[in-house]
């Protein structure tokens, strides 16, 4: 780990000014930042500590939506009554992450902005595309946990389970820097590899996720498949959000996590459900279409079946009264 200065800002404005300095890096819970420093992936000149800024730690209901501050911990998301009531997929995703100790420290802002866990990206000995190299070592290497969609440039998967849930819930992010504020649908914050393989989102230098707005969901759920039952990254994860009238689906969002470079909307599956009664055949069609267009690598084809099973089970859960 390199030498760096530690900046403890007084308020958000101070944090944004400090974060705009060259070489500065924001730190919230510090979970992923500490890993990246130790793995030699980053050598910031300064760490700007956001963690003590109470202004960024809020969770309230506003006009039928949840408004969530970036410093809200995964533990709080997993256990808060308001989240469980109106954004169940998010509570489940936050509760399935890592360990109780990490969930107490990790923040939702940091969880969304963390870098991928691809073992080539994380290893300083592999100068992969994400680090400006010319080769993805996973594609012709060890890739049993890697992506099955859009994986011709880079096979890393997006690591954030809360991102999977929040995209399914149609969340909107407020981004703020010293220059001002902008709002984007969270889905658009994430960057496909073909656009810029060296990053996973369009956050600019000095910009933070200042708030998340999550519309109240009628029915949402999330599920994560792991090899281990404690402290494991997903083999596959998915989130769904459904709106139904008299048993007929009027709107559906289905998102696959640990599947692609970004949280992946299963658009064909969503479309197939709209206007249909959520019966066994509709569920089977959607589960099949959820993996439409998958391009598994040589040794991760098994993940395709895992996603089908996950989507089927989540929709079957959603069909129950």
């Amino acid at each position, binding site marked *: 780990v390199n030498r760096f200065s530690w900046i403890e800002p007084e308020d958000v404005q101070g944090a944004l000014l400090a974060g705009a300095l060259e070489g500065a890096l924001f730190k919230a819970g510090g979970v992923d930042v500490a890993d990246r420093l130790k793995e030699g992936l980053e050598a910031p000149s300064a760490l700007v500590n956001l963690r003590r800024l109470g202004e960024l730690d809020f969770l309230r209901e506003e006009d039928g939506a949840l408004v969530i501050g970036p410093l809200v911990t995964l533990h709080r998301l997993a256990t808060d009554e308001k989240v469980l009531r109106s954004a169940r997929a998010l509570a489940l995703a936050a509760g399935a992450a890592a360990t109780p100790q990490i969930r107490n420290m990790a923040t939702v802002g940091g969880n969304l902005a963390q870098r991928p866990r691809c073992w080539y990206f994380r290893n300083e000995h592999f100068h992969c595309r994400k680090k400006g190299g010319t080769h993805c070592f996973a594609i012709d290497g060890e890739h049993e946990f890697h992506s099955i969609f859009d994986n011709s440039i880079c096979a890393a998967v997006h690591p954030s389970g809360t991102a999977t849930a929040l995209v399914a819930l149609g969340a909107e992010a407020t981004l703020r820097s010293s220059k001002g504020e902008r709002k984007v649908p969270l889905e658009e914050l994430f960057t496909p590899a073909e656009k810029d393989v060296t990053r996973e989102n369009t956050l600019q230098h000095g910009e933070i996720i200042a708030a998340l707005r999550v519309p109240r969901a009628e029915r949402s759920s999330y599920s994560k*498949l792991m090899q281990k039952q404690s402290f494991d990254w997903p083999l596959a994860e998915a989130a769904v959000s459904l709106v139904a009238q008299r048993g007929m689906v009027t709107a559906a969002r289905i998102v696959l996590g640990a599947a692609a470079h970004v949280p992946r909307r299963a658009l064909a599956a969503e479309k197939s459900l709209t206007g249909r009664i959520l019966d066994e055949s509709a569920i089977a069609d959607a589960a099949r279409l959820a993996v439409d267009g998958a391009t598994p690598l040589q040794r991760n084809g098994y993940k395709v079946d895992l996603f089908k099973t996950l989507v089927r089970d989540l929709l079957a859960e959603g069909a129950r009264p």
Partner: protein
Amino acid sequence: MFLDRRGEHLAVGNRPSTIQTLRLGCDNAGKLTAIDLKAFGSAGCAAGAGCAGPVQNMYSCPAVRSEESDVFLHSGPAAAFRAPGHPQGAFGLEQAMDELAERAGIDPVDLRDRNDPHDARREERRRGRVLIGWDERRLIKPGASKGPRKRGVGFAQGNWYNFGARTLVAAEVLLHNDGTVECRSGVQDIGGGIRTAMAQTVAEELGLSPAQIDVRIGDTNYPPGPASGGSVTTQLLLPAVRKAAFEAREKLRKEVPGEDDVLHAARKMSRDSIVGHGERIHDYEGWTSGPQDLANRTGGAQFAEVEVDTETGVVRVLKVVAVHDCGRAINKLTTESQINGGVIQGVSFALFEDRILDRQTGRMVNANLEQYKIAGAKDVPVIQSVIIDQIRGRTNVDASGIGEPATVPTAAAIANAVYHAIGVRLREAPITPQKVLAALQKKQMSGGRP
């Protein structure tokens, strides 16, 4: 010097892997006629990758052949890893024994009864069989349980050596005239709780309680203790400890005659301290580290219950019944703790642990504890441990080792349980969701034949 986790993975050594080809034969009565093992193994360089221990020593068989080759690679050093060679060897042999039992139409546990002359092992199988509900559970044919999540039970056993002392092993007991008692040895505690066993032994010899004994270890100023390896610490050190306590007490009797209470007597001494010294000698009747027959071995029988999700390939170990012997268990709590640890490490070997080397460069890609997987809290099964005391009158404490034998059979028992659950045999560890799904798919394509 402290290495970080990656340094530990890369430079300190790893358990060697093996590729084993096994052939077993038995007659109509289920008596083994031949065992033939051909094995290749490697962890990189240095240390042997042999895995033939179980093949050579578990069962009585007239014809046993093992041919083993170490393969040298540029992938770091090998290291002795809890019962070197045995968990791997048992993973092969005990699965092959199950296959043989199925082909011969004999219950797998019965097959062991017919080929293992060890009386302790027989009793362990008998007890475990009842505790897991074996006879009832095995009425369900392999793969025949209903629904996508299938349960199964499996059995495996292991054994371990009684190594003698190869170097001087000694301890001393000091009685001080302020009424305190010290026991010293250069032994180290790598987690087995040797301090507690030392305090118990001295306390028993002196008529005190363990809390009254001040145990000091891990210092080269003290008499040399045994090295930690081969599950020898307790069985080698405690006879010396007891002898030292005995000698100290005898000296005290001469110094302060007519006072039976050790602490009272010590306070009446004119000098500051009395020192008793003890060394480990050969076992009574000449047992040493020489040639080892089957009867001289400790070991255990384990029964595992698993649940396999046939849609996701995820395997969960629900329960392990572990019945073990280790001579006289000096402290039941620390002995059970060793069994718990052995089983948990066995679960990790069966389902998770995998040193993944990049096929292009040979570099380890998962040299950290998030991607090198070991069992976490929710992965730990219910562990029911049973300790059978084997009182044989071999030393003044009669202890044997438990640290290594506790982990030998676990992975094999889990693999056999997976077979019972889904009717497909997974011959490669770790048994990952990917491998389970591939095996099930292969079975489906071949029309249901495993």
